[in-house]
């Protein structure tokens, strides 16, 4: 029998621009781990951590295996450290690995964290380009934003979504990021400002694309017994899952996040969710480009295909709506490399614990959903369903 596992602590550092970052990778990591330990309190220390699940993409750090030279993991006790690298979903994958290990009985208390510090890389897009299939896409210069535009233009073609729709969902994120002390871009851009911002890769405008941020996020996960001893607000992990698509782009038609839809079905079935809009109280969706959030609404079953822009216009996914999404500002406002996919889980946990700052707390949130996206052309998705008793 799988053991029950809960998230009991969340730690964040301040987030800033990678170009302005002065903290070293280990410093960032140590700060987030310390913050998470302090969040748990009750005398929990590094000595009690039995394993470390670290999410990164080597090349974004400009070095190979950055985990090896980190000095903040409790390695003074030879704590096992697992380095998980699945691209943008590495945080979601590390979360899943940590969950499996604890549920299987290998460890009782573990941490899952990401602490990217992209100061060593001159241009991340050049590096990301090497993740593309080498014969066609790579020489074309494909980078992250190009991957996004395929999905968004197809969505506009299929469902008649407009540039204003993308701007509206972006504005919702920017509005809430202002009140999130852990967000990087806290400017509160309006729909008008977003639509006036430069077009960088059709149909994505500057304020609809994420920044390159620097900062770390750490989660502490524990078995039922330890969770009850260490926390009054344990957030139980009800289901986790990931899904993979083809590597080659020729097989894709970019008509929505079809693999995510498949994964959502599987994960919902595991926990008995039939009507996600009604049964989920809060969701964090990985949206490095604002429009992703809308494609995910469709795939996650929040609405019928193509009706996602309506949810935003009606405020269904805003604070006070039926299912608030990305009240942290999402990945759009803070994309700290691989930590961003850990952050999605952390922000959902804080909402469920009732500890979200800045007037963004969703009342009586009991069930949450965390998502991450990554790999070449969005090859991978992960999902986690989290819940309070």
């Amino acid at each position, binding site marked *: 029998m799988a053991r029950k596992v809960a998230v009991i602590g969340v730690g964040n550092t301040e987030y800033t621009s990678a170009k302005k970052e002065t903290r070293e990778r280990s410093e960032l990591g140590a700060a987030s781990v310390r913050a998470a330990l302090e969040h748990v309190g009750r005398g929990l220390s590094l000595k009690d951590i039995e394993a470390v699940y670290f999410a990164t993409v080597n090349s974004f750090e400009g070095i*190979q295996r950055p985990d090896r030279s980190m000095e903040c993991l409790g390695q003074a006790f*030879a704590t096992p450290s697992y380095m998980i690298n699945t691209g943008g979903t590495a945080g979601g994958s590390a979360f899943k690995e940590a969950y499996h290990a604890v549920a299987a009985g290998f460890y009782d208390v573990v941490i899952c964290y990401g602490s990217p510090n992209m100061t060593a890389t001159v241009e991340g897009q050049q590096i990301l380009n090497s993740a593309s299939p080498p014969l066609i896409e790579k020489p074309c210069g494909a980078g992250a934003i190009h991957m996004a535009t395929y999905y968004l233009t197809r969505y506009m073609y299929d469902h008649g979504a407009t540039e204003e729709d993308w701007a509206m969902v972006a504005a919702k994120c920017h509005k809430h990021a202002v009140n999130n002390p852990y967000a990087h871009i806290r400017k509160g851009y309006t729909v008008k400002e977003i639509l006036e911002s430069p077009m960088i890769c059709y149909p994505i405008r500057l304020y609809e694309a994420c920044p390159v941020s620097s900062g770390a996020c750490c989660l502490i996960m524990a078995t039922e017994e330890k969770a009850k001893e260490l926390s009054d607000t344990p957030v139980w992990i009800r289901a986790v899952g*990931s899904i993979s698509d083809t590597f080659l782009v020729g097989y894709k038609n970019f008509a929505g996040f079809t693999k995510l839809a498949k994964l959502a079905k599987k994960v919902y079935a595991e926990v008995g969710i039939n009507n996600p809009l009604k049964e989920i109280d809060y969701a964090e969706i990985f949206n490095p480009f604002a429009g992703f959030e809308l494609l995910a609404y469709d795939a996650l079953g929040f609405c019928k295909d193509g009706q996602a822009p309506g949810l935003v216009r009606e405020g269904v996914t805003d604070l006070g709506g039926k299912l608030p999404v990305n009240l942290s500002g999402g990945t759009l406002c803070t994309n700290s490399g691989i930590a961003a996919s850990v952050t999605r889980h952390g922000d959902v946990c804080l909402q469920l614990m009732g500890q979200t700052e800045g007037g963004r707390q969703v009342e009586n949130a009991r069930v949450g959903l965390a998502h991450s996206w990554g790999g*070449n052309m969005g090859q991978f998705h992960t999902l986690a369903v989290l819940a309070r008793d």
Partner: protein
Amino acid sequence: MGKKVGIVSYGIMEYGDHGAIRKWADEATFIVARQALDKVGLNRDDLDVVVISTMDAFDGITISNGLLVPAAGAYAKESVRIENSGIHCVMSGMASILSDSADIVIVASADTVKTDFGYVTNSNQDQFFRGPLGFNAYQSYGLLSMDYMRRSGATENDFALAASRNYQNGKTNPFGHVKKAYSTEDIMASPMVSWPLRELEIGRPSYGASAIILASEEKAKQLTDEPIWLTGIGAATNNYSGNWSELSELRAMKKACTKAYSMAGIKNPKDELDFIEVLNVFSPFELMAYEALGICKEGKGVNMLRDGKTLIDGDIPVNPSGGAMCTNAYNSGGIYRTIQSIKCLNNDNGGTKVKNARRCLLHDSDIGIGAVGGDSHAVLIMEKGR
């Protein structure tokens, strides 16, 4: 833990020099994954999870699992990639099964890309102290070996002898890379690479691919008559910085062993294990490992070697496959040696045989990319029957 996990099948390519492989990483991965599935009559749809054991730097691209997971059958399925070592990936597969998240898991890995090894292993050092000094894996092997000479009295000749025993074991291994039984004299005559290590005392890079399939107890019994049970596993990671004795005492490996032994109920490893496979990228490491594994007292590893205790017909045979001296694959080495051990347990390894072997220990690590600090170790106990 009431449930059990077993290995039910494997796929393997013959390892060789870079020029001999002539495959892309996904092609090689596909070949071994297909082989493993076919052997037990499974098809892709039967897999629940795909785990890939590679490092981006040895695949030459970033997020290289993107290229590899579909080749191992992950389309529309769960997948993950862990970079520490093959046994870390086995542990991930076990966790998926033991947590009721999966029934059948494939772990696959390939080495096909030739890299500038000195450069790559310099880039995993910290960027402030060791990195700028040009420190790379070869120097780290040398420093650790030197330290071992100091504290154990081992000589350059001992290191050559340790290497030659591996070459001797590996020469008839049909899937291995180096199949030449170099003598101690040959080894002593090879060029010095990083004192006190000579060229033939360091595993040369090998290329090939390997895959194994793990299954829950119930599925394993349906799929094969001779599953290999995974009865103990442990992992640990060394501190990156510290004083020399801290860095050379293999604390992480000891911790990993303790965990695996306690899970498998092993009290006296020397008597209770039938053979051991150790990742010996540089030959002296094997002697240090004897001590960490608890098959001899501290500082006495070299005596085990001199007394022939670890010979194939000795008290506790080590590296019947020829170890990393003969086949040193940075991505797939752990899975390769898992398969070698299974073949040895099943007595169908075609090479050096161990009589009546029923239980063995397998060690894997990322020590190949740097030996003094930051290295992770994992230990797996495998048993036949029961």
